[in-house]
């Protein structure tokens, strides 16, 4: 049974929507704010910015994260930068252009109104971060520096060396710490949310597991904000941090929150290739490298010569050849797919032949070694440390890797999931990037959600629904039921006592995901994938081996809990990919491509969001649909020629 669902976008000209709506939304009386307790799960850019801003407004905040400090959330790893439409370089940027580029970059699968709002508040983010003391890169005159990034034709990306995510997160974290000092935020580190608690259909709390003691805790509140990041680790190998996971979102899904477009994953073109079987994660090389590096493979198949021995006329700079106007700066999905194609054709380089070159020879010749060193020194060092090769003298080897998930919990214009009182921010939601995210826009979205959107929309919810008039404490039977189901699950995992490690299951799942739900998908493969994942899940629950007990630290148990959810999510991703026979952005269905092998959308039938609704274990979920329309950015075939 499929329903039509509505994103609750207000009506009117897009430029005025957010301002008028902000005025229309109800405000919480300043004296009343302290009566509301808000649970915020996650301390990445989304969670930290929301926690500090809501605390400043006067709400009582309970903040949770898996790491030993909020400052270590995965956002810390973002390298390249954050977009805004300041137009400081005077190169033709504007809010409208940022909006337009983001809608088009997402291949027309995002909600226009959300994207416009994102572009609108982006400038405030830069101001806010600068005021916190975020050390953005500067020009000699003291003004902020910009660079062009990830396929944009204007220079709108702000950055702090190759550590932009770190600096933005430390800014948001320091804001949190200021509120901790005032007693407005209570931080619960090393606490993993393992259940969402609903009372009368509304989100009223969570159950957590203390990673250090193994104890389960009940926490109640007036609303719950999930800011728990993306689910790229379903592929086992990805650029995500080791504990990045889908479990919080998955718990919400099972309690009735729709999961939107799970198949939209971003495969990043410039990662360090896999070195061997024991590899635990993949390392991203910032995409800013494509500003100066040139991507190529030998024209001949299985060419064993060293890069330096291959003359220019025997090299295929395939991105420059195929996309003369964007060249090496085509969007990520296009660059990744072309890289895979080169390798599939037998032109891959390096010992494994599963890589392409990213070459700085010409940039060094043109700008000098010092300039390149200044721009990319830390990235080159990192590459050297991992591969033992010197990218100043031999080209880097890169290959695409799973990096970001555009899909996530479905949210309306207020960032509310389909469960009242349960909001979702940052990478964990599905909202703004459509089927492909442009570079430097995830940091922007996380901070937009937390600093500038949720403070308004949450207030409106609290005044309208008045959860404070029905205070729920943790003795409520719903907390007991959820607590019991969490405990039962962990005990079950411990009780299986099978023969295979958690990682071995995770790796096998990752292989299926990469093979069947990876960069290029087709009907037969997806059907095989669904079957194999279901079989693996059944095996997992019979044969996984979790050592130790639930008393104290048990890392295997933690991992088992997350992998169990990945085994369900992976299947939903494959199902979503199967039911979307068009290609769009990062979702490439081999059956739907142009003559030139570009993604071919089918707007007549698929210009919509698929929002999956859980109907019970081992039952087919419902595929609900939110129609998308594009009155402001007319639908066209993306072209980067």
């Amino acid at each position: 049974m499929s329903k039509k669902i509505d994103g609750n976008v207000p009506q009117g000209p897009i430029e005025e929507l957010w301002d008028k709506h902000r005025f229309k939304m109800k405000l919480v009386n300043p004296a009343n704010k302290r009566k509301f307790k808000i649970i915020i799960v996650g301390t990445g850019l989304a969670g930290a910015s929301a926690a500090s801003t809501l605390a400043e407004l006067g709400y009582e905040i309970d903040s949770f994260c898996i790491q030993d400090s909020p400052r270590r959330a995965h956002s810390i790893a973002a390298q390249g930068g954050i977009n805004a439409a300041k137009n400081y370089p005077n190169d033709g940027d504007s809010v409208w252009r940022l909006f337009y580029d983001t809608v088009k970059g997402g291949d027309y699968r995002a909600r226009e109104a959300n994207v416009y709002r994102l572009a609108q508040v982006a400038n405030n983010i830069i101001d806010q971060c600068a005021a916190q003391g975020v050390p953005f890169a500067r020009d000699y005159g003291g003004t902020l520096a910009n660079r062009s990034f990830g396929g944009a034709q204007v220079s709108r990306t702000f950055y702090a060396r190759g550590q932009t995510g770190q600096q933005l997160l430390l800014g948001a974290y320091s804001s949190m710490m200021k509120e901790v000092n005032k007693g407005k935020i209570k931080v619960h580190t090393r606490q993993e949310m393992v259940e969402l608690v609903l009372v009368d259909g509304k989100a009223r709390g969570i159950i957590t597991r203390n990673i250090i003691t193994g104890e389960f805790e009940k926490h109640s509140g007036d609303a719950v904000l999930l800011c728990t990041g993306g689910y790229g680790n379903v592929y086992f190998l990805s650029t995500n941090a080791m504990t990045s996971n889908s479990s919080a979102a998955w718990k919400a899904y099972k309690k009735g929150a729709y999961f939107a477009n799970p198949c939209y994953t971003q495969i990043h073109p410039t990662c360090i290739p896999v070195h061997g079987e024991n590899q635990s994660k993949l390392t991203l090389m910032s995409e800013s490298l494509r500003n100066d590096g040139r991507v190529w493979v030998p024209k001949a198949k299985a060419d064993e010569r060293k890069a330096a021995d291959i003359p220019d006329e025997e090299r295929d700079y395939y991105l420059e050849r195929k996309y003369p106007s964007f060249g090496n700066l085509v969007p990520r999905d296009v660059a990744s797919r072309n890289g895979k194609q080169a390798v599939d054709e037998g032109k891959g380089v390096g010992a494994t032949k599963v890589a392409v070159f990213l070459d700085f020879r010409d940039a060094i010749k043109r700008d000098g070694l010092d300039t390149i060193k200044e721009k990319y020194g830390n990235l080159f060092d990192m590459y050297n440390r991992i591969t033992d090769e010197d990218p100043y003298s031999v080209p880097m080897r890169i290959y695409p890797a799973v990096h970001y998930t555009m899909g996530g919990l479905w949210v309306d214009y207020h960032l509310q999931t389909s469960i009242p009182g349960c909001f979702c921010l940052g990478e964990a939601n599905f909202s703004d990037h459509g089927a492909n995210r442009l570079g430097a826009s995830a940091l922007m979205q996380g901070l937009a959600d937390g600093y500038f959107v949720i403070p308004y929309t949450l207030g409106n919810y609290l005044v309208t629904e008045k959860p404070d008039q029905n205070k729920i404490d943790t003795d409520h039977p719903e907390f007991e039921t959820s607590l019991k189901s969490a405990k039962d699950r962990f005990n079950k995992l411990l009780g299986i006592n099978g023969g295979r490690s958690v990682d071995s299951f995770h790796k096998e799942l990752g292989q299926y995901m990469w093979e069947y739900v990876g960069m290029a998908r087709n009907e037969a493969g997806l059907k095989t994938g669904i079957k194999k994942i279901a079989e693996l899940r059944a095996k997992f629950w019979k044969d996984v081996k979790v050592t130790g007990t639930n008393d104290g630290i048990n890392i295997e148990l933690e991992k088992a809990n997350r992998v169990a959810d990945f085994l369900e999510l992976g299947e939903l991703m494959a199902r979503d990919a199967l039911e979307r026979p068009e290609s769009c952005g990062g979702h490439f269905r081999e059956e739907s491509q142009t003559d030139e092998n570009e993604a071919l959308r089918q707007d007549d039938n698929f210009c919509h969001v698929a929002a999956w609704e859980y109907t019970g274990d081992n039952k087919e979920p419902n595929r609900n649909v939110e129609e998308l329309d594009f009155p402001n950015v007319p639908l066209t075939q993306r072209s980067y020629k």
Partner: protein
Amino acid sequence: MSDKNNMTLNLKIWRQEGANVKGSIVDYRLEGVSPDMSFLEMLDLLNENLINQGQDPVAFDHDCREGICGMCSLMINGQAHGPERETTTCQLHMRKFKDGDTIVIEPWRAKAFPLHKDLMVDRSAFDDIMSAGGYVNVSTGNAQDANSILIGKDKAELAMDAASCIGCAACVASCKNASAMLFVSAKVSQLALLPQGQEEASTRVQNMVSKMDDLGFGNCTNEAECEAQCPKGIKISNISRMNREYLKASVTAHH
């Protein structure tokens, strides 16, 4: 790189079940280590073996495995983050070791960092120091246009150098006094160098330093081990800057 699984290592690892239990060094022999593995992937391999033998895997902290989150924290042969300069444990690769090597692996040790288990310690004291003043008091929505505050490139670069600290606490672990001066001075310096940090400069340095003292970190006696072991190359000149800031603050406090 080819995966030559060719090294055998003798590992001596600190095992301790919990904060209140006695710990000791336990010996493990690990075969099949490839030079391309990271140090943590080598420990993953050990843990996979332990799990297959039904034993408790070694607990250690890690997350990003990219040298930026500050989670990983191992004393390797007596050096915080091991032998390679400006490199976190997770970015250290086994090609820095030889077949047959003995490697001693221990947790960070400091009074302010109680041990949780094996190689995992509690570093929440760093958050406590940060909450004492490691910020600019500016609420969301209060900011002026970012370009209305000019900051010279050189200053901005110095501030960024200090801001690069990942809070891993290698500085504390490698200091014989378990001093946290490098960590605290990096944050104080970043904000002291920037115009945004000026208003609260004196209360910030005083509050952060006094919190640091309260939490049981030791004094700085200019050993400079912290600088030598810092995976992000944070300079001890930050400590001098903090001392100046502190002095300035104490002088003005008398008015």
